[in-house]
């Protein structure tokens, strides 16, 4: 009786052999992975100006001089912060408009590339690839090209971020749309509603909370992206930061003010958006 509950010895043997093989394979993969990490790290150190251990003692030099200089002119700090609020507003505006435009484009793209909803099923493949391409192009590439053509300023950054957002949200939106209940769509179709009416009245109400939540998340990301693009010449607070850092030895008091402003803004936006998203997903009314 007790014997029958145990597996036959051959099966146990086979199981143990399988486990051993798996462990061996896992071990080899892990060793390869670690080796590539070490080799990669060596290459990175070799191709950098200084090694990791050389730079480590200087790690705190910059924050220290930043704090020291800001402290020395602490009386000026509120004024410096206030001076850069307009640039901060520009950075946020870039992100907001890019998120709006990108979300709208992503909305259309997602409907066009969802099976069962697309008006031209033949176009699904094309629109999916288009979404992939938009998502794949790093925004800095588009921004730099547009800065060359349109001149510096917020518009190139806005277009670059909007295009990337359209791709990213198009994909996320279509994942939501794929899970949509099709019965309301059919119901509307039976009354002779057009494609636009079916989407607006049967699909959008179902997916709006999730979409909004994704769009908010994207807005957080876009604020960061817009600050970074400013640093490559697209206006806003990033541009001010670059000027502060490259002015002579660096105007560290200005840099400190901008860091502070940026940090507080990002944290505030993250927290607000996280709260809103929680409410959206839990189904509470806005």
């Amino acid at each position, binding site marked *: 009786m007790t014997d029958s509950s145990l597996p036959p010895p051959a099966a146990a043997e086979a199981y143990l052999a399988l486990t051993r093989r798996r462990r061996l394979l896992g071990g080899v993969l892990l060793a390869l992975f670690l080796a590539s990490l070490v080799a990669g790290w060596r290459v*990175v150190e070799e191709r950098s100006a200084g090694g990791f251990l050389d730079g480590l003692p200087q790690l705190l030099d910059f924050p220290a001089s930043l704090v020291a200089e800001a402290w020395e002119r602490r009386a000026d700090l509120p004024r410096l912060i206030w001076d850069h609020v307009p640039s901060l507003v520009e950075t946020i505006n870039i992100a907001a*408009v890019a998120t709006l435009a990108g979300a709208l484009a992503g909305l259309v793209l997602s409907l066009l590339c969802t099976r069962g909803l697309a008006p031209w099923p033949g176009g699904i493949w094309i629109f999916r690839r288009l979404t992939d391409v938009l998502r794949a192009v790093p925004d800095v590439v588009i921004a730099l090209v547009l800065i060359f053509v349109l001149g510096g300023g917020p518009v190139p950054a806005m277009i670059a971020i909007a295009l990337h957002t359209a791709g990213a949200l198009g994909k996320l939106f279509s994942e939501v749309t794929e899970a949509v209940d099709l019965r309301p769509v059919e119901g509307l179709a039976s009354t002779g509603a057009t494609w636009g009416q079916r989407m607006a009245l049967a699909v959008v109400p179902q997916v709006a909370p999730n979409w909004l939540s994704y769009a908010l998340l994207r807005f957080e990301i876009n604020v960061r992206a817009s600050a970074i693009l400013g640093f490559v010449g697209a206006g806003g607070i990033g541009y001010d930061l670059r000027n502060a850092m490259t002015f002579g030895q660096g105007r560290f008091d200005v840099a400190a003010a901008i860091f502070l402003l940026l940090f507080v803004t990002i944290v505030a936006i993250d927290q607000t958006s996280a709260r809103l998203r929680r409410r959206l997903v839990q189904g509470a009314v806005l």
Partner: protein
Amino acid sequence: MTALAQPSPLPAVLRAMRRRRLVALSLPVLLLAYLAYVVVAFDVAGLAQRARLDNAAILLADSWSHRTHVTRDNRSGEVRVAIDGDRRGTYAPERWPGWVRAGDGATVVDLPDGHSVTFAADGAVTYAQPGESPLTIRVVDGKVTSDLSGPVPDWVSASDTRVAVTTEAGRLAVTRNKAEVMRTLPGWAMFWFTLDSPYHGHLLPEILFGPRIDPERPNLSGAWEDFWGNPLWRHGDVAWALGETMLMAFLGTVGAAALALPLAFLAARNVTPVRALRFGVRRVFDFVRGVDALIWTIALSRAFGPGPLTGTLAIVLTDMGTFGKLFSEAVENMDGRQVEGVASTGASPLLRWRFGAIPQLVPILASQVLYMFESNVRSSTIIGAITGGGIGLLLTQAMQTGKDWEDVTYYVVLILLMVFALDAVSGRVRRRIIRGREV
């Protein structure tokens, strides 16, 4: 009876609907107002003036074509044919392209649409085109003169020091020192080999199977050397830069995950009972995320200088916050019953983790790490542009010159290929991990 006594819900419902309608109507109005404000704030109207459409034209033309310069030195009378006017793209006199013909001391340059330029032996330069009388330009007593009579046509610009002709077919500029014709030809010039390489103009089968081209070197290694070290396109350097960018993303992601993993357990409610500790670790995550890649990159580049090390560490720090948050959420959402089940067999805490928790966590965490890696390949391009490493640096350098647009196109194509390839690989691995969890 009681139902009648209750106040009718209808007015409340109607009120709610009215409020909703108001909200629904005012939202688009607010949005429009905001957009109008932004249009003013971004100075979109002024954009039309600032926009340099000629720059766009240069960009478009340069990205798929190149210019070959035919230059005559007016003092020595020597004629040089060079791609992009570059020394390394200079044709040997016996190997001039077919559209440049020399004979009797004169040189004839054929341009498209029947246009042609003749450098005569006596120093005169003639631009001939169908439908117009030929224009002859001479340098007399240090002055550049043309035989134009009557009004100057719009395709000619003339002064005492310079006469230039610009048409759809090409450009000619004559100064006291030299006369130069530029012809635009499609394609990226010298992409494989520069003209000073013996392999230029040979096809792949010739290099692979033909007789030895350069007596000094075997074909294959010689051709590889000249291609990889191509001084104009710098294929070797570009490959290194791409590698650096991928390496930054790879090491940054793995490093961030390795740092975040132990901290995430400290921040998880079901692992760490101490509330203060949890709170502290979470604020650390929030802090590194809030400081943001831009600030980290700048701060770190002060300590580690330009190069991929700064980029790697910036990714490590920023993503540590993100991973910490994601990982601790995954740990909190873990199914406790599996751990209990293992515990019921009398397993030690270590074994409980090994067989109860890790099998649940690994697929989720691995999939998050891979997803972040995909996104970091793009981020490290941008970080490279800021800190000076990888393909991002090459891209900004090529753009700053404002003329190497064929290089820019080349880099953009490579970046896209890299992102696509890594996305595809990582997406496939991610799908396998997720599917493996379901089985």
